[in-house]
């Protein structure tokens, strides 16, 4: 027996991403989130029956980047639209991809009621503590003291209130089957995020109710930092306020190994 060396592909661009180049700023973790969702769609083999719902915000063009069926919702109304699609076509896998302005601000009513009704949809929530697309205003998730263009002295909790912890909030609703928070700032956490995205789809495929994965994300342009500094800022400032963890995991999912 002789041995020869042959080239093996360890990683390649997932098939569920189109060939379009993304419009995101260099180092934006939206790209990582897109890639993970596409990888999970490839792994589960559900691309042909997946329907995504795009939000308003930086990720408004998500439909150009995923190679599956996609619709664009009005601002904040992605969970309502996903509800309609899922009820009409229950054999499809329906997910929404929303930022913090879309989900936690204007779309607060839709997301809470979709979770409360236990709609069998998956929600991917990108939390970067700022409004990215409109040039860095204060979001509901902006940290206390964080400077933004609409809170130039830092967020003063006496007048501007406290940030919303969406994962904790939605995990209290009975309709939710899987609600977790993950971060996208280093390889370990990105791997954990991918597992969570996989479990969110598994929740939906098993009909266990509403699933949401909150992904802590960066906005280097509006934070005024380099892509590498933003990852550090996320780790040092956001994770203490938004702890990574599982807030609700339905019983049948606990035995699942992915």
């Amino acid at each position: 027996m002789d041995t020869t060396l042959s080239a093996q592909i360890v990683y390649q661009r997932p098939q569920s991403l189109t060939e379009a180049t993304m419009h995101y700023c260099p180092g934006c973790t939206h790209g990582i989130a897109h890639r993970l969702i596409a990888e999970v769609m490839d792994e589960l083999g559900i691309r042909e029956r997946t329907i995504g719902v795009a939000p308003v915000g930086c990720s408004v063009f998500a439909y150009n980047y995923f190679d599956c069926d996609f619709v664009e919702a009005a601002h904040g109304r992605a969970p309502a639209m996903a509800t309609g699609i899922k009820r009409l076509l229950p054999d499809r896998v329906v997910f929404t991809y929303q930022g913090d302005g879309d989900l936690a601000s204007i779309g607060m009513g839709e997301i809470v009621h979709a979770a409360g009704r236990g709609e069998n949809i998956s929600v991917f929530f990108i939390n970067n503590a700022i409004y990215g697309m409109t040039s860095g205003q204060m979001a509901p998730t902006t940290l206390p003291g964080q400077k933004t263009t609409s809170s130039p002295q830092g967020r003063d909790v006496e007048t501007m209130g406290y940030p919303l912890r969406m994962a904790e909030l939605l995990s209290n609703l009975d309709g939710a089957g899987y609600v977790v928070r993950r971060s996208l700032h280093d390889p370990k956490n990105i791997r954990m995020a991918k597992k969570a995205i996989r479990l969110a789809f598994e929740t939906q495929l098993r009909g266990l109710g509403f699933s949401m994965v909150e992904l802590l994300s960066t906005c280097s342009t509006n934070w005024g930092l380099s892509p590498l500094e933003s990852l550090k800022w996320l780790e040092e400032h956001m994770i203490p306020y938004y702890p990574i963890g599982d807030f609700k995991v339905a019983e049948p999912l606990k035995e699942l190994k992915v």
Partner: protein
Amino acid sequence: MPAKGWIEVNEKYCKGCELCVSECPQHVLALDMARLTPKGYHPVALIGDGCTGCGICAIMCPEAALTVFREVPQKVPA
């Protein structure tokens, strides 16, 4: 002997954000200052031997611009 690997960078996608550069466990990645991508960024490139094909750069890459290869020994009947 550690596994030998290499990466291919699709310059259509790479935006030179350096997220892969900082996480590379072998420190063999850097921006290629002599090249520009069609978008006008300096693309990332291998700067030395030692790549093991671990794929951590691809895990960090927000643009899915990297393809990672590894040499694996395969037995062939004599």
